[in-house]
Structures are given as C-alpha cells and as structure tokens.
C-alpha cells in the first residue's frame, strides 16, 4: 500500500528503546525558562549518543507508519475493532510537531492520534494493547483507538468529538496560567473542526485571555468525504484564525523538517508569553477516513499525486542526496520499527482481558484515590 521499502529479511534490529517519560517538573514562571533540548520526548534511539535530529524524525515517522500498517492488518483480522482512523501519509505532521514540544507540555488530540501518542512517549505496547481492548492498554481497554490517554505524560486524549478537545486545551492552559506554570498546551485537530463552534469559542477565549495554547490544524483537505471548499466559506485557514488576532503559521505538512521548524517557532512564541498561536500543516491522508470508508469522494489521481510526496520517502531521499543517510542505515531504522511493532503485537496478544467483574470501575474516583491528573 505504501511506497516505503520493506527491509531485507533477517535484518537484525536493536531492541526498541522506550522514550523518556514526560515527568519533568514544569518550571514556574518566575524561574528563567531554561529549556533543555534533552527534555524532548520523541526520541527513538538513544545510547550511546543521541542520533542527529533528522534521523530521529525519520525513525519516528517509520515507527508510526509501520505500527499503523499493522493496525490495518489487525483490523482485517478482527483483532482491532470499532473505528480506526489511520494517519498514513500524515506522519510528518505529528513527528515534526511532537518533536518541537517539550516534555512538560500538554497535548490534546483527536481520534487520529496514534502517532501523536506514540511520540509523546506512550509505549507502543500500551497503544497496541489499547487497540486490542486489553487491560494493559494505555486507557485500560476502556478507550480504544480513539481514546488513547497518558495523563502522567500529559497526553489528554484521544477525543472523538470533532472540536471537543479544543476547550479542554484552553482550560489546561488557563490552569497553568493560574498556577504560574510556563508550559504550552498543544491541541491538534483537523481542518473540519474549524467549522465547529468549539473552534471559534476556544480560539477566542485563548486570544482574549492570552493563554499559552498552540492550535495545530492538520489540514488534510477532507473531513470524512467533505472537501474543504465544500465546508468553508473561507478556505484560507490562517486568515480565519488571524481574525482572532493570533499569530498564524503555515507549513508543508509533508515535509517533516518544515513542520518541526515551524512548530518550534510557534511554540517558542507561545512559551515566551506571546499568547496563543495557530499553525496550519498542509497534508493529506493516503488511506480512507476510517476502515468503514469506501473512499468514493476523491480522485484516485489526486491520491496518487500526493503519494508522490510521501513524507517518509521524500525525506529519506533528501537525506541520502545530502549524504546523511545510507540505504543500510535506512533499512536498519525500518527494521527497528518493525521489530518494535512485532513486539507490541505479541504483547497485546498475550495481555489478559479485564475481568467483567470490574465493569463498573472508573466511573467515579474512588475515595482517597484522587491523585494525579487532578488532585
């Protein structure tokens, strides 16, 4: 289905390396905002020396791609059920954006969030187990693919109501402001969400109160089967956002380096107290909206055209041209990603089901158990 090459059989892959959890304490506003690069969460491989950023970006795009390709297979095999929205083709967006954030930042995402969760440090095992509906999943099997959560890593879902996460992001940023935390809250959403009242109410509140929210729009040109021009009177999304007097940024969402640079600039401005910012990442999904979508509303030629610009092969080709990547190194990264996926699937397969006796758990907070997340 995808253009990226398969690794040669039998390539020995190093063990996948867990990303660093985002448990770093945020710095209070009073302290000088010294941010260390090593705080960044989305680090694929570490020891002995951290590979250059470009290789980490490439490796993480591969991890998302290989994980999701397997998800599609597992869906066909009946292991993953419900709605499954793949991100294939859009990997440069999550990869560039998540790398541009600090470990202490908050992220609120949508149902198309597998990649974002992974790069925020939610283990692939926990993600895969969640998709299988197992108790070892990152939401204990209660959420599924659309509701991946990891509150210790400040990943607040996994929201399947279009636009529903945006007010939450405003509130998280408000809480940070009231508590003197200098932290960015990034909310990721599709261009379809910009027609929702929730978008307008949220960006207005964030701008009115000058809250540190990074509005990150992944414009893949379609909301299910509805093309942008069929849902928006103003198709220039930055112009729309700019009417709320927020700084706007636009990047080629098929170019991971451009996404990283742009989101880094936007996040820096937000972090330094410049109020909210809006980033539009122009991208495209190669697969259907969800596993139920027969994809009848767009031209096959259009899809093929965008695939020419596939974020993984275009970036790796560029790195090879620049002499910063060899074919062997690429194959090694790819094999590493595939090994991580295989291990995650094995983990999810063998993980136990939650006993039905526990059905009523986690509706309310048990007495004396209210720590983390809230209080």
């Amino acid at each position, binding site marked *: 289905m995808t253009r990226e090459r398969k690794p040669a059989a039998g390539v020995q892959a190093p063990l996948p390396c867990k990303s660093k959890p985002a448990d770093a304490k945020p710095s209070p506003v009073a302290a000088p905002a010294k941010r260390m690069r090593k705080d960044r969460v989305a680090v694929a491989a570490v020891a002995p020396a951290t590979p250059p950023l470009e290789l980490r970006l490439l490796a993480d795009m591969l991890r998302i791609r290989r994980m999701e390709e397997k998800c599609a297979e597992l869906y066909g095999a009946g292991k993953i059920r419900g709605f499954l929205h793949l991100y294939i083709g859009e990997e440069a967006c999550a990869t560039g954006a998540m790398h541009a954030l600090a470990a202490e930042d908050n992220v609120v995402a949508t149902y198309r969030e597998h990649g974002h969760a992974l790069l925020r440090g939610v283990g692939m095992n926990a993600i895969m187990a969640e998709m299988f509906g197992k108790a070892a999943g990152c939401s*204990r099997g209660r*959420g599924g693919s659309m509701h991946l959560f990891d509150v210790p890593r400040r990943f607040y879902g*996994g*929201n399947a109501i279009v636009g529903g996460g945006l007010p939450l992001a*405003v*509130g*998280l940023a408000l809480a940070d402001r009231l*508590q003197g935390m200098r932290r960015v809250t990034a909310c990721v959403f599709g261009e379809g969400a910009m027609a929702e009242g929730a978008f307008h109410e949220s960006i207005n509140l964030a701008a009115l109160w000058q809250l540190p929210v990074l509005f990150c729009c992944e414009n893949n040109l379609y909301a299910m089967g509805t093309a942008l021009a069929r849902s928006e009177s103003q198709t220039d999304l930055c112009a729309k956002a700019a009417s709320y007097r927020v700084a706007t940024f636009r990047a080629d969402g098929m170019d991971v380096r451009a996404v990283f640079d742009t989101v880094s600039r936007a996040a820096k401005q937000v972090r330094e107290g410049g109020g909210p910012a809006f980033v539009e990442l122009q991208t495209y999904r190669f697969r259907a909206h969800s596993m139920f979508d027969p994809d009848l509303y767009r031209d096959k030629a259009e899809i093929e055209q965008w695939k020419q610009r596939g974020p993984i092969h275009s970036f790796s080709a560029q790195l090879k041209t620049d002499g910063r990547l060899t074919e062997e190194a690429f194959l090694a990264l790819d094999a590493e990603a595939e090994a991580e996926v295989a291990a995650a699937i094995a983990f999810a397969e063998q993980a136990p089901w939650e006993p039905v006796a526990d059905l009523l758990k986690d509706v309310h*907070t048990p007495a004396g158990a209210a720590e983390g997340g809230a209080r």
Partner: protein
Amino acid sequence: MRVSYREAMRLALREALQNDARVFLMGEDVGRYGGSYAVSKGLLEEFGPERIRDTPLSELGFVGAGVGAALGGMLPIVEVMTVNFSLLALDQIVNSASLLRHMSGGQCSVPLVLRMATGAGRQLAAQHSHSLENWYAHIPGIRVLAPATVADARGMLAPALADPDPVVIFEHAQLYNLEDELADNWRCDIAHAAVRRSGTQASVFAYGGCLPKALQAADELVAAGIDVEVVDLRVLRPLDIDTIAASVRRTHRAVVVDEGWRSGSLAAEVIARIVEACFYELDAPPARVCSEEVPIPYAKHLEEAALPQPAKIVAAVKELLNV
C-alpha cells in the same frame, strides 16, 4: 442569622475562594455585573478578575475550559446562567466531563463544579423556563444536586468541591429570595435525601423549587387531618433509595413532585426505584405531580396551570387516600 438562599450561596462561594487557592469562579457576567441572579455580587472586588472570571457568551467553550482547568489541577466553579443555556454546553458536560475518567481508564479526575439556575414560575416563557435536571441525572460519572433550603445553599458547595468528580448544582430561580434562619449546623453531605417533615399517611417526594410547594401542601393536608411526610431528594444522582424506601415503608403511599415534564421524568425514575425496592409495602399505586406536557407558556394563569402547584399535590395525596 437570617439569610436568603442567594446570600447563603454567596457565603459558600466566598468561603471556598478563601480556603483554597485552586478555586475560581467563571461564567457569563459573574464579575462586573455581579451574577445574573446577583449570587456573586461583590466577589470580584474581593478576589479580583483572575478568580472571578467573566467569560464571553461561549457556553461550550468556557464549560470545556472548566473541564480542562480541572484536569490541570484547579477547582473551577463554572456558572452557566441557566439550564436553558447549558444546552449549548451539553457536549462538554456529557462527552468530556463525565466520560474522561472512564475513557482514560481511571487516569484522571475532573473536579469541576457546575452551577446553574433552573426552573419556571416567573413568566419568562418557554425558552427560559426549562427544568432539565433529569437529563443530567441520566449521566453516569456526574453527581447532581438540588439545594432546596437555605442551609443546603450554604452547605452543599464545600462537599461538591471536595468531590473529585464533576458535580452539577441546580439552583431553582424561585428560591433565591427564600429567607430562613441559618442555624450553626448547616454543614451537610451530598449523598442523602432528607425528611423535611415527618408523617405517617403518605410520603411526598420533591426537590428544588417544588420543595416549598410540597411543604405548603403538607400544611394544608395536616390542617385537613392528613399526616404526610415530605422528603427532599436533595441529591438527584445518585438517588438515595434507602431514605426514599424507608419513608415508603413508614407511610405506604408515595407521591412524587417534579417540575420536569412527566414523560421520561426524574419522577418516573423515583417511582421505578420505589417499585423495585418496596412494591409490597405500597397500599396504592404511586402518583406523580409533574409539569403538563406543554412548553411553559408566558401568560401567568397558563404558566401556573402548567406547573406543579400545592393544590395539585394536595389533590394527588387525597386521591391516594381515597378522601
């Protein structure tokens, strides 16, 4: 000390703001204007605009922001002017506040308190007269309170803030001017119904704005020689079935008063619980006094006719007793 329901609520807000730096109040016109029902009057001057936060007309946005702030470690009290406008925020209440703990597998709590005025009776016509407490009482994950006395207006906020999960407080608009002596023992829980008047021949269950009507009906009935018990539901979710059933076991007759429309009403739920818990204790089929199935009309006589009234409660009890 004699105080109004409104003042009792304000005392509770002030105490909460003084006691915990995480508490803040947010909503439309809560600050400069002083609250559309004047509940928060004076609090802006006392606590400043960061903690008494005026919002734009964005019910979905600021209720959702309250959910996010609760996730982020604060204890927000979000005032939605009235239940009528809370319909614009339903998504954030039903799809975020009440679900986040469960969907995340128990990773987070949402210690949010949502306050809203409710109810009819002031000739405000159909769009400003809703009583939709039962919609909220349908949702797992939230607690729903209906303070109907000055003491509960004073006492319910603190335990609501101490609850780690979302709590919705319905303040019946007709109650704000209610005055009563505030005794020292106003502290209360948010788990139990309360017997407001003991009796032996029938139990009248009511909540919120219907409690004074039920008590007035009880006075008339007692004067007519009928000894009724009046139970204030107080907590609409989860229902305190133990107190409800205990009352029915004493009186063997039940009338439920509810300003919501009869179909799918909270009264229907209360009666179902009674039937499940103590069917064989009943000497007569349970009865309901609900709003008529019509949008609440503007004209005074029609509005009165649409709502539960003491006379209707008296009639319902007498019918149960065949007198």
